[in-house]
């Protein structure tokens, strides 16, 4: 019931299309271009010499535990800039069962108002 040429068909949305195979061809070409550009990079780079050692502006290298950036430190600036939003969200997420049901009742009341009054 599924012929082989169906595997090549394009997913047409009403104002666009999406064909993964075309995308795959394009991405392969892009990889090739990137590889060529990489090929014409610095040639005097050597493995296993002073060049590959970690250079922390002269400071000694930390051990592995501190080298890894902790998850709570990723996107620190985002959290800081949206502190006003996150304070409200934290106030919303109380782990209290009654609040869960309260939100349900609020949605119920809002829908009643919308569908009843109009």
């Amino acid at each position, binding site marked *: 019931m599924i012929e082989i040429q169906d595997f090549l068909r394009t997913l047409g949305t009403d104002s666009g299309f999406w064909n993964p195979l075309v995308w795959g061809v394009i991405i392969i070409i892009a990889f090739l271009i990137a590889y060529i550009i990489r090929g014409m990079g610095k040639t005097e780079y050597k493995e296993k010499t002073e060049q590959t050692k970690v250079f922390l502006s002269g400071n000694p290298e930390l051990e592995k535990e501190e080298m890894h950036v902790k998850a709570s430190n990723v996107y620190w600036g985002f959290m800081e800039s949206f502190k006003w939003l996150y304070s409200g969200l934290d106030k919303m*997420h*109380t*782990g*209290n*069962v*009654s609040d869960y*049901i*309260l939100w349900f*009742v609020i949605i119920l009341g809002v829908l009643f108002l919308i569908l009843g009054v109009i």
Partner: protein
Amino acid sequence: MIYNIPYIAVVALILIGLYAIIFKRNLIKIVIGITLIESGVNLFLITLAFKQDSIAPIYRGSGSRIMSLPVPHALTLTSIVIGVAVLALMLSLIIHIYKHYKTLDASKIGREKE
């Protein structure tokens, strides 16, 4: 609308249950609220089954053939058994919660802090 008093009672039961769930902080009282809502719904089903001057839907040798509707009785039976199951599970979970937290205050447990 004097005939709608039973429906008013149903709504009152459901609202009392909701009040107990929302405004009470003891877990046992929250469970009691849920059982109140459940009994309100069961009362609603049974209320729908009633018909004027009717008997239970069981054939006797004699008696009037005006019978109350049998389907809501069956639904209520199912709903009651489901309520029993939910109640048993909730109470056993509350036992575990008390073992872990040594309290039953809903606002003192369950706040996620990482």
